[in-house]
């Protein structure tokens, strides 16, 4: 496992997202995964897709239970909101603190970033409170070949297609913020700080891109297939 980090240290945040912490000792990847009860195949596919941006084995991912995928997506949310976002906020605060002439500009940037964060939070909330529970429920029915009346009714009015339509677009603000920093922030002395913020924004954007790919190319198609099967299949209906 230690070799993995030596080869590509940028994987560190991805690895800790699985709940795995440093202090690997001499253990292999498999042993570490066992220790933390992580599915080793899933772990390997995820870190490989982060390591090589062109590698995204959607077929392999689709073979894993959606529960794994959702657990993973949730921990990514946690990472964004509890770590990445506060980090960028602190950097912007710092920028406001040390600048004198451009204070006003940076205050604007802070508000703008805050708007983005609010959108992100709303997005996460909706996924975790509505979409994911729905999917977990769906997968359970599908595997047990039993469908509750409630779910059956829900399927009549709601499908993942609706979520898919609303999905996306929250990255626009992040994109704008990058361009404003790169192109339009007046010249000033705090270059290193600005560079720092920018590189954090780029990293966040990249990570979220990976995250959306997982949702759009793996989770949604799988859910669609299950919805179809549950609608057409003759599953036993539970009267609950």
């Amino acid at each position, binding site marked *: 496992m230690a070799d993995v980090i030596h080869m590509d240290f940028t994987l560190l945040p991805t690895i800790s997202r699985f709940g795995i912490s440093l202090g690997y000792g001499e253990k292999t990847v498999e042993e570490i995964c066992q220790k933390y009860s992580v599915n080793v195949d899933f772990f390997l596919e995820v870190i490989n897709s982060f390591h090589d941006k062109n590698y995204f084995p959607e077929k392999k991912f689709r073979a894993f239970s959606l529960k794994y995928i959702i657990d993973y997506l949730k921990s990514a949310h946690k990472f964004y909101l509890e770590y990445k976002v506060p980090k960028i906020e602190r950097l912007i605060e710092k920028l406001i603190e040390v600048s004198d002439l451009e204070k*006003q500009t940076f205050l604007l940037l802070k508000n703008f970033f805050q708007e983005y964060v609010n959108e992100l939070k709303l997005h996460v909330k909706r996924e975790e409170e509505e979409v994911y529970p729905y999917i977990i429920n769906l997968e359970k029915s599908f595997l047990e070949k039993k469908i509750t009346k409630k779910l059956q009714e829900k399927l009549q009015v709601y499908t993942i297609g609706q979520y898919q339509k609303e999905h996306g677009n929250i990255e626009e603000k992040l*994109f704008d*913020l990058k361009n*404003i920093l790169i192109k*339009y*922030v007046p010249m000033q002395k705090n270059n290193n700080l600005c560079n720092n913020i920018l590189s954090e924004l780029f990293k966040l954007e990249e990570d979220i891109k990976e995250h959306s790919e997982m949702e759009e190319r793996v989770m949604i198609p799988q859910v669609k297939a299950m919805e179809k099967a549950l609608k057409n299949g003759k599953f036993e209906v539970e009267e609950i």
Partner: protein
Amino acid sequence: MVILIAEKSDIIRTGIRYILHEQDKNQIVKEIENPDKFKRTIEKEKPFLVFGSSDFLNDSYFLGLKISKDKIKYIGICMGAVSQFGANFLSDSIQIHSTKADIFRILQKFSTAQPRHDFGKKDHELTTREIEVVCEIAKGLTNKEIADKLFLSTHTIVTHRKNITRKLGIKTASGLTVYAIINNLIEIN
């Protein structure tokens, strides 16, 4: 700006392209080997300079030409006599045994007449109209409201917005507001 090489021989085409790229590796060079498609290629690529053999640059081509001769400079690739060409229409010519320096000289002579790159153009600066639109967006107006205020159609506003986004790299209304304030286009109230 495109340079077109019209020549049946692979060896000659490749050779000229190689020399052109030695001078400027970013130069866009298109090639054509079939005289039947020559006219269409000219219309499509709109080159400013054409190197061509007499299979292409002959009287029958030049006499049927609609695009004015001044816009495109034709350089003959000569195997023998220049007279096989629609010679009056050529701006210059090279021989099969011409040196690199000859070709560089031709490039120099004709590229100053017309800029080879668009780098100089201020394609990314907003027009006055676009600035007006940015200001209105920044104030929170919708496309429809902006259209009414500036006496334009909503469709025109949408086009302006597309161009603004392309030029600035800013997609959202709040992003444009930040842009407008930083550049003192509007005041904070």
